[in-house]
C-alpha cells in the first residue's frame, strides 16, 4: 500500500509543486539574467532583490480580467492553454532526478516511474503540447495568432524529426529507451554521452530551443512581428498558463538533455577517482546544477541573438539539422556494429 500508492502520490505532489515553483522562479531568473546582460537591475521592488516578484506576477495574472474574444471558438479557446500546460507537466513522470536513496529506512527512487519506453514517452507527450499553440492561434479568430500557429505547427514538426533522430543515436549507444537505464549506461561507460555524441548533443540543443519556441527561434510568439503570436488574444490566467507551459517545457528540455547527454545525476567525470571527494554531495544536486546551466544558456542566448526568419528556420531544420542527424545516426550504427563484432 505504502509503496504502491502513497509514495508515488507523494512523489507526484512534490515533483508537481517543485516544478511549478521552479517555473515561476524561472521567469524571475530570466528577467534577472537578461537584465544583467543589458546592464540593468531587473525586478527590485517586490521583496529583497525582487525575490517575491513571481508571487506578485501570479497574483496580478489571477485577478486580471479574463477576456474571450467575441467571435472566438470558445471551447477550443479555453482548452488550448490547458492542452499546452498538461503535457509539459506530465513529462516529469519519467525524468530521473537521482538514483535510489534510502530514506527513513525505505528505499525510494528519485523518479516517479521508470517505464521501458521512457524516452519515447517524453517525445510523444511533448509533441501533443503543440496542439495548445496551434489551437490557441486558431481559436482566437484573429490573423496574427493564426499566422503564429501556422508557423508553430510547421516549426515543431520539422524540429521534432531532427530531435527524435538524435535521440535514436543516443538510444543506440545506451541500448535502452528507459531514462534511468540511459544514465546507468553513462555510468557504465564512464563518460557522458555529450562526449560520445557531440553532434547529436548540438542538434538536440538547437532543436530543443526551436521546440520550446525560445530565441532565436521564437517565431510563433515573435512580439515584433506577430504582436505576441498565438497568445495575442489571451489575458489573465489563460495567458499565464501558456507562459508557464513555455518555461515548464524549457525545464523539460534541460532535464532531458541533462539525462541523455550530461550523465543525469552523475557527478562530473564519473571515472576520475581523484574527484571522489565530490561523492558525498547528493546526486540530485548534480542533476539540478546541470539543468540550471542549460537554462542559463537558454536565457543567455535569448539576450544575445536576433531572431531567425521563418523560411531560414525551416531551411536550417530541413537542410542542415535533419541530414546531420541522419548522418550521425548512420555513423553511430556502423560504429556500434563494428565494435560489436
Amino acid at each position, binding site marked *: 500500500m505504502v509503496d504502491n500508492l502513497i509514495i508515488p502520490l507523494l512523489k507526484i505532489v512534490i515533483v508537481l509543486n517543485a516544478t511549478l515553483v521552479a517555473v515561476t522562479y524561472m521567469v524571475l531568473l530570466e528577467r534577472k539574467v537578461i537584465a544583467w546582460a543589458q546592464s540593468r537591475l531587473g525586478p527590485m521592488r517586490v521583496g529583497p532583490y525582487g525575490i517575491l516578484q513571481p508571487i506578485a506576477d501570479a497574483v496580478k495574472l489571477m485577478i486580471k480580467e479574463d477576456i474571450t474574444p467575441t467571435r472566438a*471558438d470558445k471551447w*477550443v479557446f479555453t482548452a488550448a492553454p490547458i492542452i499546452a500546460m498538461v503535457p509539459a507537466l506530465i513529462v516529469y513522470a519519467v525524468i530521473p532526478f537521482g538514483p535510489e536513496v534510502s530514506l527513513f529506512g525505505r528505499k525510494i527512487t528519485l523518479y516517479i516511474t521508470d*517505464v*521501458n*519506453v521512457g524516452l*519515447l*514517452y517524453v*517525445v*510523444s*507527450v511533448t*509533441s*501533443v503540447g*503543440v*496542439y495548445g499553440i*496551434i*489551437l490557441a*492561434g*486558431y481559436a482566437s479568430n484573429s490573423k496574427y495568432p*493564426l499566422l503564429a*500557429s*501556422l508557423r508553430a*505547427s*510547421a516549426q*515543431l*514538426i520539422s524540429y*521534432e524529426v531532427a530531435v*527524435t533522430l538524435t535521440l535514436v543515436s543516443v538510444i543506440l549507444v545506451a541500448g535502452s*529507451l528507459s531514462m534511468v537505464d540511459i544514465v546507468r549506461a553513462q555510468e557504465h561507460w564512464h563518460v557522458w554521452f555529450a562526449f560520445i555524441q557531440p553532434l547529436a548533443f548540438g542538434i538536440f540543443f538547437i532543436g530543443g530551443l526551436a521546440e520550446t519556441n525560445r530565441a532565436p527561434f521564437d517565431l510563433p510568439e515573435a512580439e515584433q512581428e506577430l504582436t505576441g503570436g498565438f497568445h495575442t488574444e489571451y489575458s489573465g490566467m489563460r495567458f499565464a498558463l501558456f507562459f508557464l507551459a513555455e518555461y515548464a517545457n524549457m525545464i523539460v528540455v534541460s532535464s532531458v538533455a541533462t539525462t541523455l547527454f550530461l550523465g543525469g545525476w552523475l557527478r562530473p567525470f564519473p571515472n576520475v577517482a581523484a574527484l571522489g571527494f565530490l561523492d558525498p554531495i547528493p546526486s540530485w544536486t548534480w542533476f539540478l546544477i546541470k539543468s540550471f546551466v542549460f537554462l542559463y544558456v537558454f536565457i543567455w542566448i535569448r539576450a544575445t541573438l536576433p531572431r531567425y526568419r521563418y523560411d531560414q528556420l525551416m531551411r536550417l531544420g530541413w537542410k542542415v539539422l535533419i541530414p546531420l542527424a541522419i548522418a550521425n545516426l548512420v555513423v553511430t550504427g556502423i560504429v556500434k556494429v563494428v565494435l560489436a563484432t
Partner: protein
Amino acid sequence: MGQAIAFYTLAAFILGFAVLVVSTKDTVHSVLFLVLDFLFVAALYVLLAAPFLAVIQVLVYAGGIVVLYLFVVMLVNLKRAPEAHHDPHRRTKLGFWLAAAVLVELGAIAAYGPAASAPAVTQTAAMPVSGNTEQVGWLLYTSYLIPFEIASMLLLVAMIGAIVLAKREL
C-alpha cells in the same frame, strides 16, 4: 473484471469520438476529436500491455500526422457559404449501402473467421529478446520484414511524389 470495464469504457469513448469526427460541422473540431480518438486508442494499447505501440501511436498520429491535418485545415479556408453544404452530387444512399456492406463483412469475419487465439503470444517464447519494444522490433525485422519494406517503399514513393507536386519549378 477491471480490465473489461476499462476496455468497454475506452471503446465507448473511441466510438463516440469517431462519430463526432464525422458529424461535427467545424473542420477543426473534427480534427480535434480525431486527436482525442487517437489518444484513447493509445490508452487501449496500454491496456493490451503494448506501451511501445501506444507511445508511437501518440507520437506519430497525434503528434505528427494530425498536426499536418490541422495545418492544412487552417491554411485552406474550408468555411464555405451554407448553400455549399447542399451538395447535389452527394450520394447519401450509396454511402448507406456501402456502410451496410462493410458492417456485414465485419460480422462475417467475426462469425466465420479463424478464432483469434493470439498467435504472437505463443511466438514470444521463440524470441531471444524480452520486453515489448524489443519484441516489436524482432517481429518487424524477421516475420514481417517484407511487408515492412514494402510499406517503407510506398512511403518513399509518396514522399517523392509530394515533393514533385509541391515544387513548382524543377
